[in-house]
């Protein structure tokens, strides 16, 4: 795997300037975060539980707005965007969660197709794309399987396929290996790395699994007590 190049493209996919975030119950969870993720970069975000990893990711996939500072995605400040514009921006972002967040009453293929349905596309127009993507994540034979019948690893791969079906510019994964065994976790991270390498998609993965991180030659951001204390640290060579 080639080494990470921080400024591979001129335009940053993600840029945070002086961003802070507080919750009413817990107080400040992120403090004065400055961050830049170049377009096409592959980055890990790590830190202990409660460090603010998920909160930082929520700012990036637009689930929260910061109390202070500016979040820019694809060169655009997000704080003054209307709801419709936020929705349009979210279509450029694929999100993978630890707990998968799949719709259990839909099949694997229907879950993958969800962003396309939301975009108003007809089933006949995306059937092949969904099939190809599910094959790529190794679930070509399980397309019509109900979600509850899938294993944790399979569900996570469905979630990854759903995050990628829109060909997003940015993929954010929040502890994607948290609910799968080590081998499946490795496979999932490799899928995301392959996506980054082949499609040039910007990938940010939050994980506390340092063992897996060391297998990838990618920069690591570390959050502690809501502060980004080390913004670039290379993992061990894969």
């Amino acid at each position: 795997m080639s080494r990470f190049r921080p400024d591979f493209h001129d335009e940053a996919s993600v840029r945070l300037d002086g961003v802070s975030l507080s919750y009413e119950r817990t107080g400040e969870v992120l403090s004065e975060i400055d961050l830049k993720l170049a377009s096409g970069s592959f980055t890990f975000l790590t830190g202990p539980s409660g460090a603010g990893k998920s909160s930082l990711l929520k700012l990036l996939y637009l689930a929260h707005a910061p109390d202070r500072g500016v979040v820019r995605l694809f060169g655009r400040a997000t704080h003054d965007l209307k709801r419709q514009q936020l929705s349009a921006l979210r279509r450029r972002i694929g999100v993978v969660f630890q707990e998968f967040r799949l719709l259990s009453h839909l099949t694997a293929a229907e879950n993958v197709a969800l962003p396309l349905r939301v975009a108003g596309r007809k089933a006949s127009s995306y059937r092949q794309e969904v099939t190809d993507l599910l094959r790529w994540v190794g679930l070509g034979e399980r397309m019509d399987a109900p979600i509850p019948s899938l294993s944790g690893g399979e569900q996570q791969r469905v979630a990854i396929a759903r995050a990628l079906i829109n060909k997003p510019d940015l993929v954010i994964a929040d502890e994607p290996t948290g609910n799968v065994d080590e081998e499946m976790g490795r496979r999932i991270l490799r899928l995301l790395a392959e996506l980054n390498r082949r499609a040039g998609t910007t990938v940010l993965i939050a994980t506390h699994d340092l063992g897996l991180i060391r297998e990838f030659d990618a920069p690591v951001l570390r959050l502690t007590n809501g502060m980004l204390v080390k913004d670039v640290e290379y993992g061990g060579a894969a």
Partner: protein
Amino acid sequence: MSKETPLLPISDAREAALYFVVGALCFLAALAALVSRGTYTAAEAWSAQVEGEITVILEDADRRSADALAGQIEGLAGVVEARVLTREELETLLEPSFGPGGMPEGLPLPLLIAVLSDPETDVSDEITALAATAGLDAEVSAHSGYARDVRRALSVLRLVALGAVALLAATAIAVIAFATHAALLARRDIVDVLHLSGAEDKFIAGLFERRFWVLALKAGAVGALLALMVTALIVFSGGAQGETAAQLLPQLSLDFVDLIILTLTPVLAGLSSRMAAHITVMQSLKGTL
């Protein structure tokens, strides 16, 4: 992926209860609308019947003078017919007071002239003047006076019935709004995933709109069908038909307009539910993801 599964899971126990509530409200609303219309129809029919009628009561007059006055009245503009009632006709009129055995012999009865005139023309004063000229002691009673009172009373009844329809419709809308809010909370996970997938609020609102549109349409159809059955039962058992006092009751007829009301009930229920769901979802999603 041959047929797309709805993004909101198919109904659960809560929806069955909602189905019942909306159905019951539609049943009551349809019935109230039919009663409102029946009241109006009864008022119109009864008023049309009595408004052109005038009764002239003659005290201490003989039959010949009464016939002469009736002839003069018939000559007035707007009068269709004027005739002195026979003793048999008077007995029929008084039968509710004296019973079928008839009136006691020798009971003095006034002479009555029944006048039928154009409802638009009030000839009461002219009849009074004619009677005075003829030297007769006449009391002229135009039925339009109490027809007006009855019409007013029936208008109030009609307003009450329409108010009941409006109240039931508002209740149905409130119930749907409440149910939508509950469903939105229950399906928060789905709503979040849809938002993260780039769905706009109106897309999510559309899912709930379709759900409650179909629910209200089905429940409304059942409610309207029940209202149709109840009305048919009343109509065909003759419950609201008959003579005299019964004519003042709402006349449920199941005519074309009634069938239109029954047909529109589920459609209006569906549209109102759709609107309630749309507003509720759009309001609720403000301030979320």
